[in-house]
């Protein structure tokens, strides 16, 4: 096995002597003998580096890779976008990777400035004024958005669109067991949310575009929220910001989302990036870390984590959130990716997703028996109903080298399949996929 412990036997002896002990076991005298493990851990002894890597490669080989082995038409909150070499090489420099949370700003300006830029970029995309330095994922960002709205309004019911990613809704449900929030799920009609009149909702939570890819009517949601005195919380797809009006323009109070599309590979679902942005009024309730600009003792522009009295280490049981470790590195990668895309690149990326989606949707719908699940306009994701069970189609078409999408649960109707098309999909891939689709449903 490799040893990452540098101590030689001679050094151990010297150190033990210095602390007045005669064996390593004596270090653990404080552990009651009855609790000590007699025969060590019941796991395998260590492996050498090449042996370890061989085990890991063996496992990796048992997955079908998106791209080379499985052309990916699945989305649903995890998208197969290009990650350019620049992002991979620069964002994962070891200074960013092996740093701790920037507690000593004098030697952490690198991470702090990158986060400040990330915050700015995300605000520009969402049309908000404040962004935190990341949460865990799309789901946790939704949870925190609801927590904020509940704390701010003193109400505890939330109108939850069925168009919100079902996994995220599940997480909201799990956490509600603690917080006691109540969710009133509002159904979709023709792909768009129908808000249910509830006496006093704290907030409306809507996804834009929603889980079925449809462009929700945010203006209507805002109006509804205003009437109810509720917050409008929008879970948005940051790629869509390349062509869609920002939730901020529609008057959202809090805009959250999943930042994975910018610089993070599919990664079997994590680590991803919880995006959280809001209006400036809400800054005292902001969960997690916030970086602000300031100056140093010599008057030089500097960055530091600020308004820390919201945070758990200072405010403890009264903190606005329990978040400590977040997803900083993924936020840095997101900032690098956005810098690389640039203004026109982001627009083009979004446009290319929309074009591929249109092309694939039209082609699929030309197959007999494949029907649109809903008719509302979509952006880069769409739902169809299939003549066979989607699970079966997915299984069969995998043999042809495609990941056909994600089966929709019964809440969206029968035999629903959700597909997504990113800028990576070529016309040839789409054509061949559609041909294979036609074949397997026969």
């Amino acid at each position, binding site marked *: 096995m490799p040893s990452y412990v540098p101590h030689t036997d001679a050094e151990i002896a010297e150190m033990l002597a210095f602390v007045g002990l005669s064996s390593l076991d004596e270090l653990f005298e404080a552990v009651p003998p009855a609790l000590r493990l007699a025969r060590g851990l019941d796991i395998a002894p260590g492996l050498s580096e090449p042996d370890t890597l061989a085990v890991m490669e063996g496992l990796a080989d048992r997955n079908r890779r998106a791209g080379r082995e499985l052309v990916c038409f699945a989305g649903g909150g995890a998208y197969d976008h290009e990650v350019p070499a620049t992002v991979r090489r620069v964002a994962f420099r070891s200074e960013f990777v092996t740093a701790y949370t920037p507690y000593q700003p*004098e030697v952490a300006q690198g991470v702090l400035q990158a986060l400040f830029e990330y915050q700015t970029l995300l605000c520009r995309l969402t049309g908000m004024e404040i962004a935190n330095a990341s949460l865990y994922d799309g789901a946790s960002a939704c949870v925190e958005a609801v927590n904020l709205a509940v704390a701010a309004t003193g109400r505890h019911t939330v109108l939850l669109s069925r168009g919100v990613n079902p996994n995220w809704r599940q997480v909201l449900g799990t956490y509600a067991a603690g917080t006691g929030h109540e969710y009133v799920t509002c159904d979709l009609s023709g792909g768009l949310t129908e808000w249910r009149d509830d006496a006093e909702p704290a907030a409306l939570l809507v996804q834009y575009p929603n889980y079925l890819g449809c462009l929700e009517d945010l203006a209507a949601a805002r109006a509804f929220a205003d009437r109810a005195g509720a917050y409008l919380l929008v879970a948005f797809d940051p790629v869509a910001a390349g062509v869609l009006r920002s939730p901020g323009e529609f008057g959202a109070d809090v805009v959250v989302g999943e930042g994975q599309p910018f610089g993070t590979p599919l990664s079997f679902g994590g680590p991803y990036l919880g995006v959280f942005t809001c209006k400036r009024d809400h*800054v005292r309730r902001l969960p997690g870390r916030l970086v602000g600009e300031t100056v140093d003792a010599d008057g030089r522009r500097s960055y530091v984590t600020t308004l820390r009295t919201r945070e758990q280490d200072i405010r403890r049981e009264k903190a606005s959130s329990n978040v400590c470790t977040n997803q900083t590195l993924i936020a840095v990668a997101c900032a690098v990716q956005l*810098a690389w895309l640039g203004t026109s690149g982001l627009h083009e990326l979004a446009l290319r997703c929309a074009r591929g989606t249109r092309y694939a949707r039209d082609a699929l719908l030309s197959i007999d028996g494949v029907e649109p699940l809903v008719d509302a306009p979509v952006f880069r994701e769409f739902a169809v109903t299939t003549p066979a069970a989607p699970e079966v189609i997915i299984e069969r078409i995998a043999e042809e080298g495609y990941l056909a999408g994600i089966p929709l649960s019964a809440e969206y109707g029968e035999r629903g399949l959700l597909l997504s098309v990113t800028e990576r999909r070529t016309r040839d891939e789409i054509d061949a996929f559609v041909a294979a689709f036609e074949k397997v449903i026969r």
Partner: protein
Amino acid sequence: MMPAAAGGKATSAPIMGRDAEPALFELSSPGRRAASFRTTGVPEWSVDELVPVDHRRSQPAPIAELSERDVVGHFTRLSHRQYSVDLGAYPLGSCTMKYNPKLCDDAAALPGLTDVHPAAPAALTQGWLELLARLEQVLCRITGMHAATLQPPAGAAGELTGLLLMRAWHGEHGGQRRKVVIPDSAHGTNPASVTLGAYETVTVPSDERGLVDVAALRERLDEEVAGIMLTNPNTLGLFEEDIAEIAAAVHEVGGLLYYDGANLNAILGVTRPGDMGFDIVHMNLHKTFAVPHGGGGPGAGPVAVSQRLAPYLPGPRPVVGDDGNYRWEDPPKSIGRVHSWHGNALALARAYAYILANGSDGLRRVAEAAVLNANWLRARLRGVYDLPYDRPNMHEFVASTTSLKKEKGLRALDVAKRLLEEGFHAPTVYFPLIVDEALMIEPTETESLQTLEALGDALERIAGGDIDDARHAPRTTPVRRVDEARAARQLIPTWDARE
């Protein structure tokens, strides 16, 4: 419009000078761009044809407009303004900033792991399911627990998951309870999670040994106590010797024991939370199992539980069938999902590689060396700093400048800043809250005796040094002491918020 700044000027790189690095937005020049896209052959519909006008943006979202060269220059220079484990020691107490083996970077970068969609059916992702199932198993064996969930993406998320498990348990066993006990030395996430779990925090004081005051604990235990959250060794680096007694007392009133695994590094292969009587354990893989901290994250905070709590774990979980195939399964009484997908999968893969490489022998070695290092350094600092709890510690210990402050005004903060000039990251300061002017020092096992000696010498120099010197430190860093008060007073949270 401001003229764009020079992307190829390196005065902000500490090798060249001490200027501020321009903001990304200052480097932007209209019309510049790095991005290029795959040729797809997809028809080039215009945005008007694709997006209804009500939804269409009138102007592209302003990002920044840079060449690839300037993007790379900017972030490379920023990386040179950032301290990291790879540059030197990071003795932050409670944080276990050990060296992150490069092997694990490679393991987590395997395309067969990175390029897998989380919603792909189990049949196409057997490698991932097996990896996760195996990791659950080894984590259970390391902690002495029965079953685990890998979903929580960080320690705090693990805590909340654990508290929700507590709720679920009590809900089915005698009804809900109101309170959760935590020691006064606990990490801030503990009480914050308790609140989110809809419990009330009851604090139990530490005694003069620095351990949970068992008598005081007994006074607080009643039928309203859902459980207790402890870390052992505790945040002072001391092993809670009375843990068996504590466990019995809590169990007696029907409470559960929650183990905050942030300090697991100290006891790997020595003892196990399960053996101590804990019911729920979270682990910080970004501490004990060398997942790099990433400047603040991502980490991973799996939760392992005893048999009676297993049915409540979040799902889906990977399980293996008789045919050797893996599938997803929800535990029968699952509290539900706590992550969008399956947790921070690549961080989990790193940790698994780390555990494989170290194995039973290596992990025990980790604990031994971590504890030896901390004890050596405490002995080295005896007589130099106050040691409020000068007794054999585990992987970390707490020193204090109380006397030095009285004597000449040297505060923990000054020590922290001066230490930067000496080539070391500062320890954790002013935590735990129960120690005045606390310096919480955790050397970790990957630092050598020579590094400890240099650190000890530096800390001694600082204690004996000129107070003015300390007050003006650091002087060698890219920026000097940063005005934190101003940052809060005149909040500038984005580039666009500058006047």
